[in-house]
């Protein structure tokens, strides 16, 4: 039981060289899906263990904490691990044909290697208790994601990958510099140790610099509003299955780093309040919600529309975190999980329908409601969930978001949230109108039910389920945020 944290990272790492030696596309698929299923099961076991008996620390090489490297599986880490491994499994399970059709024949086994490495990177970021390891895992996941993005069929996808490489590297350099500054000042890289050795009395220049550098670096990684440019490019030109996977994981990991750094490592000096960072991010996020929802309405391509919608939803999450109340944090965590399921479902629908096409416009969806009744019903449920209709998971997120804002001292923000929620209806209507009330453009395009469609339906059912039974998201999120703010109050 106590070995689970390292197994989540090591098992895929054993599979990677095996795939490299076999060089067989079918075997590499079977191995990757098997290992991601095992990872999902291990994560669920870990979550149950942590819920029952508290944080699980894992010391590599049995060297104890400040000297050795340690993994820390706390409730927050398990929550994000569950999200990442669930999304990876669903995308791999639904994506075999999509990957075969999109990626070049010779590159398919490399694609699975990059996928597994990306997942290892995400899991490592989430589990590690050593801040330099966090950077290393961040680089592992970023480098493999550049490869994944460059495999799209559109001729601009290598360019999108290069652009993401530049901006991602700049973000990573900021984070590395910030870690360096912290190390200069505290002489340790262990997160728990760092948070104990800095206090509000002895803030020096390196620490201030480190906070600023972390802020920009994490802002790039989590697509904070003015730094979101890479996300739209990436989401419109990367292979559709990669977009599906990243929509639920990549930026969420960025938000995880934000929580870990600003609420856990720096919790003794409360940088978000001390330097008014919270109100600054709140302002940017509000601007982000408004503008990106506005841009989403004006888009003609489905992927770009959904990408702008993602930025808007990420801004909601940041708004909730920056309220700096336990209710706000739990609202953010609820929305992270629900939004991942909704957005993955929406992108997966596009991916299973238009396997390797790019630049899918809204009018390409005309009349699909008649030809793909079950699939489009699931799509409709997911869109309604994105708007926040009652009985869907989106409603739960919006409810907790708005009520946490009303409880805080910036209640007027809730008006903005409600207005932008209403604006969501506009671009959702553009999609619904084309799907259900337009004639079919390409009447030959009719296909019977396929296995991969069932994952979209599964996600739609999950979205309704999470809207009715909220034990997983709400109870867990509230427990995590209570833990966090109990530490803060001490």
């Amino acid at each position: 039981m106590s070995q689970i944290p390292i197994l989540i990272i090591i098992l895929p790492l054993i599979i990677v060289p095996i795939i490299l030696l076999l060089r067989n596309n079918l075997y590499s698929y079977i191995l990757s899906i098997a290992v991601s299923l095992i990872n999902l099961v291990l994560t669920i076991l870990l979550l149950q263990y942590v819920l029952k008996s508290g944080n699980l620390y894992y010391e590599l090489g049995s060297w104890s904490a400040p000297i050795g490297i340690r993994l820390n599986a706390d409730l927050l880490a398990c929550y994000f691990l569950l999200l990442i491994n669930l999304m990876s499994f669903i995308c791999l399970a639904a994506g075999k044909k999509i990957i075969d059709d999109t990626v070049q024949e010779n590159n398919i086994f490399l694609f699975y290697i990059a996928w597994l490495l990306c997942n290892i990177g995400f899991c490592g970021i989430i589990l590690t208790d050593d801040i330099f390891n966090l950077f290393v895992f961040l680089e592992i996941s970023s480098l493999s994601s550049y490869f994944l993005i460059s495999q799209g069929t559109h001729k601009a996808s290598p360019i999108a990958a290069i652009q993401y490489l530049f901006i991602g590297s700049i973000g990573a350099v900021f984070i590395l510099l910030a870690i360096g500054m912290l190390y200069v000042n505290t002489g340790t890289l262990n997160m728990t140790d760092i948070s104990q050795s800095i206090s509000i009395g002895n803030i020096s220049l390196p620490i201030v610099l480190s906070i600023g550098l972390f802020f920009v670096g994490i802002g790039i990684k989590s697509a904070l509003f003015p730094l979101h440019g890479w996300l739209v490019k990436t989401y419109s030109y990367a292979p559709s299955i990669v977009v599906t996977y990243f929509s639920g994981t990549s930026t969420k990991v960025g938000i995880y780093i934000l929580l870990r750094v600003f609420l856990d490592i720096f919790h003794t000096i409360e940088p978000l309040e001390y330097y008014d960072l919270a109100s600054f991010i709140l302002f940017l996020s509000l601007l982000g919600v408004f503008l990106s929802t506005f841009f989403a309405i004006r888009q003609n391509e489905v992927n770009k529309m959904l990408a702008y919608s993602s930025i808007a939803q990420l801004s909601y999450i940041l708004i909730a975190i920056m309220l700096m109340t336990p209710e706000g944090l739990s609202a953010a965590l609820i929305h992270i999980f629900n939004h991942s399921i909704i957005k993955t479902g929406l992108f997966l629908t596009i991916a299973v329908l238009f396997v390797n096409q790019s630049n899918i416009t809204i009018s390409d969806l005309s009349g699909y409601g008649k030809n793909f009744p079950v699939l489009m019903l699931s799509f409709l449920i997911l869109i309604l969930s994105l708007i926040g209709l009652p009985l869907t998971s989106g409603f739960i997120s919006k409810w907790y978001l708005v009520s946490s804002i009303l409880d805080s001292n910036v209640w007027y923000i809730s008006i903005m949230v409600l207005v932008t929620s209403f604006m969501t209806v506009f671009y959702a209507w553009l999609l619904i109108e084309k799907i259900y009330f337009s004639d079919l453009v390409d009447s030959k395009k009719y296909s019977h039910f396929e296995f991969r469609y069932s994952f979209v339906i599964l996600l739609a059912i999950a979205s309704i389920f999470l809207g009715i039974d909220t034990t997983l998201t709400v109870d867990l999120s509230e427990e995590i945020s209570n833990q966090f703010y109990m530490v803060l109050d001490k």
Partner: protein
Amino acid sequence: MKQHTIPRIITKLIVPFILLFGLYVQFHGEISAGGGFQAGVIFASGFILYNVIFGINVGEKILPIGLTISIMAFGIFLYIFVGLLGILMGGNYLDYNLLGESKVQGQIIGIFLVELGVGITVSSVMILIYYSFNKFEDNK
């Protein structure tokens, strides 16, 4: 480079020393400066120098690309295997203490094997990067 006598002779003279120095850094990494990563780079640099001077296809006769990839995977396996030995023997991942009869012996065995894995992987990756630049030139 056929008509350039001096680089050819100098290369023939120094390549064995570079390779030997790579091995020295590899096996003395735990008591002096260096380690698997540096040793791998030094070892690969000797190999690459020989390739640059004596024609880019000489190297592929000794180390074909497929074999290099297998060696690279072997290095990773070695690392993971030593790490997992710690778990199998009842400790944590990468726990060297249990590998030998005493703690010190275990640490020496563990570090030696892990650094060997790192060295093998790094040198084959360096050589593969060189090969892929060659192929890039050919494709043009």
